[in-house]
């Protein structure tokens, strides 16, 4: 397991900085997380956090619209941003000689973003095309929305997706989005990770030079997730899609302080690859389904959602497949994994983890992810120790936390 050297520091204005040098790397990753996501939006005003992911590239005091992306690419770097329920991340991976430029670009937009009526209008149209392209115009494009709605009411902070409602965006004034930016986009609500070809001392000096003078301010409190009732039983929808799908889902622990390792291993024993239990049972032996998969949608401050899904074989009712999935989970909850099953799941987990750490861009993102979820970036180094300490009974217990009955979604092909 490679060691990840880290230096952390907090600037006077509250910006937290972590530098993870790697002299073998050809590049340096600049990874800035603002602790704001769709969780921080209000009913009727959704999609703001994601809208800023767009507006942040529309220019600032010394940078023209679109110039940020153009400049980084023109120096052989890669640049992008993503928005989730709990954070918005901005990242540039650049040759070492362009590190200072990347920090200057981040500082300029943190302090002087151009939130003009013109930028707002244009990016609102781009976001509408993004929603059409990625959701409305894709088969199964509303699955995530339906699953979320099965577990959270529309007024719950996790009750809507980050892309938000286009009606909300249309009804929003420029003042409202400006206030959202002023509240959340400040040094004390951000964490900056530099990973790769950077000397920690030099890196800190450059960060201090470009971001140290920005004014500090108190970070706003996140809203409290309200208590809410359990899963919503089952739902059947008909859509013009090629195949029926069955989703069984459960509320699992928030990701704050929890890496879900035992749960991920349980999902791997059940669904990862041809050798997994549910594949062998549902696909190979009983011909109930053609595919099974599992994943968890992580939420920081309230229940994460763990899903097992299957594509039923022709003529097999969805309920029968869902019953078989739940029986498979119950079997693992009763007996736990065999030694071979656990060995396989651990070996696959370890390879995936090492692959994620192999690029500076992902390493920087993982450091920020662990910082948000555990309070310190070095939590990333605990992962292999956690993994090797997992016992068969831990995996059994994780499967036992997926209690019956699961929440079910039958996503059916419209009959023609």
């Amino acid at each position, binding site marked *: 397991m490679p060691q990840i050297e880290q230096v952390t520091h907090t600037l006077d204005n509250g910006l937290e900085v972590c530098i993870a040098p790697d002299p073998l790397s050809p*590049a340096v990753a600049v990874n800035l997380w603002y602790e704001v996501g769709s969780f921080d939006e209000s009913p009727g005003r959704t999609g703001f956090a994601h809208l800023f992911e767009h507006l942040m590239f529309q220019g600032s005091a010394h940078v023209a619209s679109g110039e940020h992306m153009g400049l980084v690419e023109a120096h052989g770097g890669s640049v992008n941003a993503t928005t989730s329920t709990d954070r918005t991340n901005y990242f540039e991976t650049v040759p070492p000689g362009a590190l200072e430029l990347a920090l200057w670009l981040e500082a300029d937009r943190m302090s002087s973003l151009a939130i003009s009526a013109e930028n707002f209008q*244009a990016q609102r149209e781009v976001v509408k095309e993004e929603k059409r392209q990625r959701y409305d115009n894709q088969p199964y494009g509303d699955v995530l929305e339906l699953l979320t709605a099965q577990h959270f009411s529309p007024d719950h902070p996790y009750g809507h997706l980050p892309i938000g409602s286009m009606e909300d965006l249309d009804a929003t004034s420029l003042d409202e989005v400006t206030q959202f930016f002023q509240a959340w986009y400040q040094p004390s609500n951000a964490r900056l990770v530099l990973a790769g070809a950077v000397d920690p001392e030099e890196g800190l000096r450059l960060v201090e030079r470009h971001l140290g003078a920005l004014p500090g301010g108190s970070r706003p409190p996140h809203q409290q997730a309200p208590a809410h009732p359990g899963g919503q039983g089952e739902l059947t929808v008909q859509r013009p899609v090629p195949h029926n799908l069955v989703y069984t889902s459960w509320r699992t622990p928030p990701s704050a302080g929890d890496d879900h390792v035992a749960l991920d291993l349980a999902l791997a024993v059940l669904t990862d690859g041809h050798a997994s239990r549910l594949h062998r049972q549902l696909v190979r032996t009983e011909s109930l389904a053609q595919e099974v998969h599992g994943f968890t949608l992580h939420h920081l401050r309230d229940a994460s959602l763990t899903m097992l899904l299957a594509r039923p074989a022709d003529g097999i009712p969805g309920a029968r497949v869902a019953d078989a999935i739940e029986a498979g989970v119950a079997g693992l909850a009763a007996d736990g994994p065999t030694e071979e099953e656990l060995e396989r799941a651990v070996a696959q987990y370890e390879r995936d983890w090492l692959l994620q750490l192999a690029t500076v861009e992902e390493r920087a993102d993982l450091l920020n992810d662990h910082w948000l979820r555990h309070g310190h970036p070095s939590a990333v180094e605990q992962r292999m120790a956690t993994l090797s300490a997992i016992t068969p009974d831990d995996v059994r217990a994780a499967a036992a936390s997926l209690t019956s009955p699961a929440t079910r979604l039958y996503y059916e092909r419209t009959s023609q």
Partner: protein
Amino acid sequence: MSRPTVSLQQHWSFPQPEEFKLPGGLRVWAFDLPGQHVASLELVMPAAVTQEPRDREGVATVALHASDEGTRAHPDGQIVELMERRGATLDGAVAQTWTRLGADAPAHRLSEVLPLFAEVVHQPDYAQADVAHHVELQVAAFESRLASPDAVAAQAFRTALFGDDHREGRPVAGTPETLGGITRDDVLAWHRQHWTPAEATLVVAGALAGSGLEQALEALGDWHADSPRPPHEPPAAKPAHTVLGELAEAVQTTLQVGCLTVGRSHPDWAALKLGAHVMAGAFASRLNLELRERRGHTYGVRGGVSARRHDGLLTMGGSFRADAAAEALDTIREFAALEEPFTDAEVADARRYLVGIAPLANETAADIARQAAALAAVGQPASFVNDHFAALEAASTESVTEAWRRHIRPDQLTVGASGPAGSLPVG
């Protein structure tokens, strides 16, 4: 604080492999990459799908994906279980002119994984039920593509470019009609004839010191070919026209616009690569700035030239608000006419990107193995990458403009699209 200056002084080059042949004839490229704890294997076999029987199209794809379900020594899922317990995972792909089987595994376990990998290559079991399952998966994947705007536009583009009567105009993985006829015998026959080391290359990349690679390769040592591969005949493009794949409920129109052009071996290749990046590849490309940033008609334009075995392919496109798609197509044609020559600044930015992104694009063993395999698959040496970078550095702004004007004719652009009927003029 004024804008910092940037100093780019590093010189990067693509690593060169140790190259040798196994006794049976398989060529090996071994990249020793210290620090890369996850190693990558890529076996590329230049088996062209033009060799598939017309009524069994998709057999190459089924043969690939069913290969790891079981081997004669480890049937019924045992082989993949053995590989996975050693931290290995398999993947692969079939393209028009090659089949690729790959694996990622911890470098220190390569010596255990390679013999299992060789078993998948040599003696897949292809049990009746496994073949039937993979035929069903490919039929399902075909149906899924019919519902995907991007896939429908891409198929419309291939149909328009090559026609239904050429293999390249039809889906690589077959159609429900051709897949439905595929039997275990067909798959075994395809495997026997085309999974051979003739012109094939095994790429191994990772921290190889102490991995026992040499000894482990004995598992593939006596793999040999009984006959050479038949020559591959590239198809000619049809005259430019437009094909719309109708998706009645679509809320956007998706366009793929382009043409066949010169490939890697042409002296204009690097210049064309630069021009296509300025036109449609960069975020700050001419088309993306106009259609996304100025007009808000799309989430993004993407495009570029990609190399094929004997030639190259220019594509440009994206998904557009349905009522703006015809206008977007006019804009693409207008920009492709290149009335305004490329500027020094545009070409310099594209060059710095295409050269400068290389270290990032080749950061892991898997990146390097994939890049090398893509070259090996079409008979190019691994040194191509560094020669190409030198050509990118040498291309002048004028040569980039001239190459575009010489090879790209706006009136000869083929259009594949998906969307509601009537959202584009067709024919």
